[in-house]
């Protein structure tokens, strides 16, 4: 396939165009799904090949992608990418610019400890069946499932500036779910929660200890049926890592994608309350809040040598000591903002156009353990495991519900509360952060399902976080 990509780049170099990049992906995917203890789905999508060609010509971007890799189809794809740019330029008032990039020739081939695609299928099924069987049998548990998805993608990236990089990655996402009912109402618990995807192979399934946690989620789901709700108008909340990753994702990650500033995502994902003039002076959070984009950390799913337009991986501060200092950018949007590109242009598959995407988007650790943070909380709640998330068009007003929370009184965890729901305005919320746990609690959370763009792309990405406390948060919202 490398020769195929070289040949396409050579053909594009012979055209009168400003810039072009070519991507090829070969993606494998396997899914195991048990429902109420029974195997409902076992399947795979192997050797899913795709090719994408992006062209900048006459000041306009054109893109064509295909999964049909015959020579005729490839030639047609090259022509469509170029003609899409040239015809599109007739309705382009401000030509897109693109600075020539430094050449990179490199390779990164990740090796999992246990390659799920080489493992015995029967073993994987038996492993999950054992977990699934442990979730059934209790009369109050009316529904349960266990699901794991394995993913492997080989990618070649090349551009007309001379960059040529190939990459192989493995990602894994395990999950289990129970629904308890008492006939009047139902309550759910998941484990390890919605930010459950990690870079790695089957070892990531073992790490989360599904089987060892079945009794806990069954017990908690049943207890939630009779648990009280939060009654206070406002409360101090400590947010656990799984849910905090989503809080960071929605209210800081998407908000600082520069394409939103220029309205490029208005038609679907939305805008952002951030304006270019805010860079360097806008208070996004308290002094404790340091947020950065880091595509150089191999531990996260956002690692890359170059992004999908050839910009080398980078660590870029987005919020420094509470002040908004930069954005996640592409080459084109960085130029519009007068900043350096942050290496955030990515596509899910080769036949998708690259967009500004989070990579490893992180909240820097503070100090101390979670126990220390709880002990220093006189009155509040510790909440985790996302249930509902929603944020507005400008990434300003959010409302989240978690599956479970624990009342904190005088530094100790007490009874559980059901469906804790809190609401906030992004900069006010981050300004209320008065404690972030230290490195000992900091780890990567992640998802396969960050949706953006049209046609929609679901991106794998990670968030490095440690639990954090937020003071005086509105948490009495009820339907």
């Amino acid at each position, binding site marked *: 396939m490398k020769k195929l990509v070289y040949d396409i780049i050579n053909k594009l170099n012979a055209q009168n165009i400003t810039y072009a990049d070519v991507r090829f992906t070969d993606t494998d995917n396997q899914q195991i799904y048990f429902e109420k203890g*029974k*195997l409902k*789905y*076992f*399947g*795979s999508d192997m050797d*899913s*090949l795709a090719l994408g060609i992006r062209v900048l010509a006459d000041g306009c*971007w*054109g*893109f*064509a*992608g*295909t*999964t049909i890799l015959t020579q005729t*189809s490839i030639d047609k794809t090259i022509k469509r990418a170029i003609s*899409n740019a040239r*015809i*599109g*330029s*007739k*309705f*382009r*008032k*401000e030509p897109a610019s693109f600075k020539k990039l430094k050449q990179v020739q490199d390779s990164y081939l990740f090796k999992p400890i246990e390659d799920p695609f080489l493992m015995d*299928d*029967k073993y994987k*099924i038996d492993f999950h*069946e054992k977990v699934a069987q442990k979730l059934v049998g209790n009369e109050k548990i009316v*529904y349960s499932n266990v699901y794991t998805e394995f993913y492997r993608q080989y990618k070649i990236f090349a551009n007309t500036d001379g960059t040529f990089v190939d990459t192989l990655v493995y990602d894994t996402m395990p999950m289990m779910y129970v629904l308890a*009912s008492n006939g009047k*109402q139902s309550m759910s618990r998941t484990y390890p929660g919605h930010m459950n995807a990690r870079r790695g192979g089957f070892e990531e399934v073992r790490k989360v200890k599904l089987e060892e946690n079945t009794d806990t989620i069954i017990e908690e789901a049943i207890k939630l049926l009779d648990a009280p709700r939060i009654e206070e108008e406002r409360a101090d909340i400590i947010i656990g890592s799984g849910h905090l990753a989503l809080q960071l994702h929605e209210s800081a990650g998407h908000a600082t994608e520069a394409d939103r500033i*220029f*309205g*490029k995502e*208005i*038609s679907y994902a939305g*805008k952002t309350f951030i304006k270019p003039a805010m860079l360097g002076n806008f208070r996004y959070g308290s002094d404790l809040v340091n947020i950065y984009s880091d595509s150089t950390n191999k531990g996260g799913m956002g690692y890359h040598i170059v992004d999908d337009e050839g910009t080398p991986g980078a660590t870029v501060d987005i919020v420094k000591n509470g002040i908004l200092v930069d954005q996640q950018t592409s080459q084109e949007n960085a130029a519009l903002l007068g900043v350096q590109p942050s290496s955030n242009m990515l596509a899910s598959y080769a*036949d998708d*156009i690259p967009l500004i995407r989070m990579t490893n988007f992180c909240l820097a650790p503070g100090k101390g353990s979670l126990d220390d943070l709880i002990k220093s909380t006189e009155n509040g709640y510790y909440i985790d495991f996302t249930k*509902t998330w*929603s944020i*507005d*068009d*400008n990434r*300003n*007003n959010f*409302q989240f*519900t978690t599956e479970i929370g624990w009342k904190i009184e005088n530094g100790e965890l007490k009874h559980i509360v059901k*469906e804790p*729901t809190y*609401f906030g*305005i992004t900069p006010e919320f981050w300004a209320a952060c008065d404690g972030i746990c230290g490195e000992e609690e900091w780890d990567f959370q992640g998802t396969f399902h960050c949706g953006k763009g*049209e*046609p*929609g*792309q*679901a991106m794998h990405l990670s968030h490095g976080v440690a639990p954090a406390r937020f003071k005086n948060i509105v948490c009495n*919202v009820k*339907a």
Partner: protein
Amino acid sequence: MQFQKELIKICEKYPQLKLNFHYKIWETDFLRFYQSQINYNISKTSISLSTTIYKEKKSYSFSLKDPTKEILQNKIDDVLKLIDQLPEDPDFVDLEDDLSKSAEKEKTNNIEKVSLKKKIEILEKFSSAVELYDFKIYGTFICNYRTLYIVNSNGLDKREISSPIYLECKAVNQKNEVTVLEAYGGERFENFNEEEFTSNLVGKVKAATGEVVDVESGEYEVVLAPRCIGDYLLYLESSIYVRSLDSKQSYFEGKIDQKVFPENVTINDNPSHPDLINFDYNGDGHIYKKLPIIEKGVFKNFFVDNYYGRKLKMDKNGAEGEALVMDTGDKELNEMIGSVKKGLYISSLHYMNFINRRETSITGLTRDGTFLIEDGKITKVVNNLRFTENISDIIKGITDIENKSYTIPYSSNYGEFGIYSARMPHVKVNGFKISSSTKTV
């Protein structure tokens, strides 16, 4: 077409197995625009085959991109080595066996009919029309063309061709970012009325040039645009799919033939409605026909597919909820707005998510034009607002329904950018709960 014949031969070759094939040839031409200029245009083509193989109650599924007969045969051979080792699904009974066919329709390929040049000509007109008011256009203009073959061991051999068009045009005020939306969806481009579309868009732009204000949280009388009531009903569908009964997540469990909503609410799923994007079959290949969902407030039917229909011993009906039609009422829109002393007109919704699916509790936001109604008139633009509410309560709160309905396009966005539509009127709702303001438009 040749490959579909190979699929039939493979079914015949393995009488001891139950095979199910979905073979899709799909193209899209996808234009995205912003600030009254092109962002990018995407052309994509894909050929894919999704297969499920059952050996008695054991199954394995796989997908292949642009497969040859040899690749498919090799994959089946691999599956046969594995399948005996898998646990059974005791709930599996059989694959779809509805052999009835819809009248096959050849459809125009709208990717060819509505070329990129044609799209640009149309967008330039929209751009000029709103420029006068200091607005620019943002959005998407999409044409798909898909041929789907559904073949299985029970003798199903069906083909469905679709070529939907989806145009979503937002006009954004360049000073304060107040946004309004006009959309078109359909398969017959000759029905697209460019003049009417432009006039509607400009009408909304004019309404959006007023003062922007905030409102307090609380209960309001609201007029919901057709897109909004359509959105709520699409979310409520999660309780209408029969699978939700199995997972104990359905609001409608035990409520067939019970009055659940006001008598003026009647909703059908009608995939052959002349003003909607039409569908012939559901995902199983069962013929997809009109089905009553709510009749004069009474819940009538779940969407029953092959698997869960057999499991729960309910008659499968092939309905999928991709063509919802709400019956019109007897009120003019002006009359509905005119009857509101102080309330809201909500144009569009954003980022809804269930808090508790069975209870239909949901949170979400307004978007693309929220307006204050004072003394029966739209007077001001309102910041986008958050609602936290039970969908069932919203529908129970419907007091008036417009005497006219509109086609609203929706997209599933992911995968092959599925486009479908609904036919909805404006509705007036009492006691709509606004839980907070976003302080932005």
